[in-house]
């Protein structure tokens, strides 16, 4: 059963986490004013499978360009991310993305005021690129995508994430 997480108490109930899109400066601000920042950092460091999309990717990055100077980021995946890199909404777009890990049929990537991964460390596995830029990355149990799979009905990526999370958590044949 999915749980919406706004407090440290709600965070205790979950085995893996998806940080969806939204306004990254707002998410950062609300993390700082709640009791979540420390507990979330700790839980991700202890190996909780976590996937951030768009604003979630920004939050998980190790380095942030064009963010607010007081913006929190957790350093959970070794990527340098530039916020709003394509520009304003008028430059938001959808594009077919090839993701070999889920088969040959392309995935419809929806990029909304999206960030760009400018650099990925050697420990980061790039699962998909678009125009030679990484758009889906993985480092151990931590995933980051600059597009929004939550805005399409295609669940292949979510299924793969859950399958890997189950393996990571030691749940045989199961989903967390």
């Amino acid at each position, binding site marked *: 059963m999915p749980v919406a997480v706004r407090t440290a108490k709600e965070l205790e109930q979950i085995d893996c986490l998806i940080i969806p899109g939204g306004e990254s400066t*707002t998410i950062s601000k609300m993390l700082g004013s709640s009791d979540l920042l420390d507990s979330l950092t700790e839980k991700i460091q202890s190996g909780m499978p976590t996937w951030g999309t768009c604003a979630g990717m920004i939050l998980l990055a190790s380095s942030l360009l064009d963010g607010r100077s007081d913006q929190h980021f957790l350093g959970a995946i070794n990527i340098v991310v530039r916020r709003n*890199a394509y520009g304003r909404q*008028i430059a938001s777009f959808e594009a077919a993305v090839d993701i070999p890990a889920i088969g040959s049929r392309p995935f419809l990537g929806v990029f909304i005021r999206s960030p760009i991964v400018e650099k990925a460390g050697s420990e980061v596995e790039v699962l998909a690129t678009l125009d030679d830029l990484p758009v889906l990355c993985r480092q151990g149990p931590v995933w980051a995508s600059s597009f929004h799979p939550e805005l399409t009905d295609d669940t292949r990526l979510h299924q793969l994430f859950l399958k890997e999370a189950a393996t990571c958590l030691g749940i045989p044949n199961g989903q967390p």
Partner: protein
Amino acid sequence: MASSVESLNSEMTSHKTGTFRVKKGLAEMLEGGVIMDVVTSDQAKIAEDAGAVAVMALERVPADIRKEGGVARMSPPEVVEAIQNAVSIPVMAKVRIGHFAEAQILQAMGVDFIDESEVLTPADEEYHIDKMPFEVPFVCGANNLGEALRRINEGAALIRSKGEAGTGNIVEATRHLRAINSELAELRQMPESKTRRIDLVARVAKRHRVPMELIEAVAKAGKLPVPLFCAGGIATPADAAFVMQLGAEAVFVGSGIFKSENPAVRANAIVEATTNYKDPDILLKVSRNLGEAMLGEELATLKTRLADRGW
């Protein structure tokens, strides 16, 4: 880097901009947040510092439009540009109902969302803007389900209650949210039997003046095909939590913040209340020591009812 990426984007034919999915996508990214009316770059910074998910760039807030009267138009480009330059969150701006040339100008400025708004003086008494051809998404106000569906049929990517802007009085927004929700509930009760259903869908479509396909899609999903936000009359953290619990997916706050005694503190509190709208302990905490709210107005005393504009 940014400029090379922009040229990359325009060269790529596989990149489709301005699709309905992309327009609605931004609306969905604003869910759970607060969009604040601002008239200066300083106010915009206060809004961003407080955790607003977007700002609405205006020349005058609705309370002042109401007080000063005259024809209310799109804000001058330099007013909107100053605000675009001051913050990194999305910037919205308003156009008059039906005034597609104002919308073309805002799109050329790269405004992130256009509000075709009854708060400004309507420019066309028959037609709203045909929003489909625009690449920038539109939000429109609605008093009831029919109005919401007509705007969606014209291409709106987001619907908000109209409320009664500039009054600090939540009662009208409550009426609109409740009307939309109860009419949606009726559609969810549609009979399964095919012949009876087609008959009913046709009647509802005729009543609302929209295609049958749209009614069928809404009846099937049980909700609007775009997000529903609340606007008009929100003045306190409790107001924000109230409309979120009534089913709004985010809130617009107009005069309520910058017409109050301590805007920065109130802006913070309304963001906290919108995020934690179901947690009375947090609502209590953030409702303390905010200073005076905007005075507000009783609806019966109003000379102009903005919510009656649009159809």
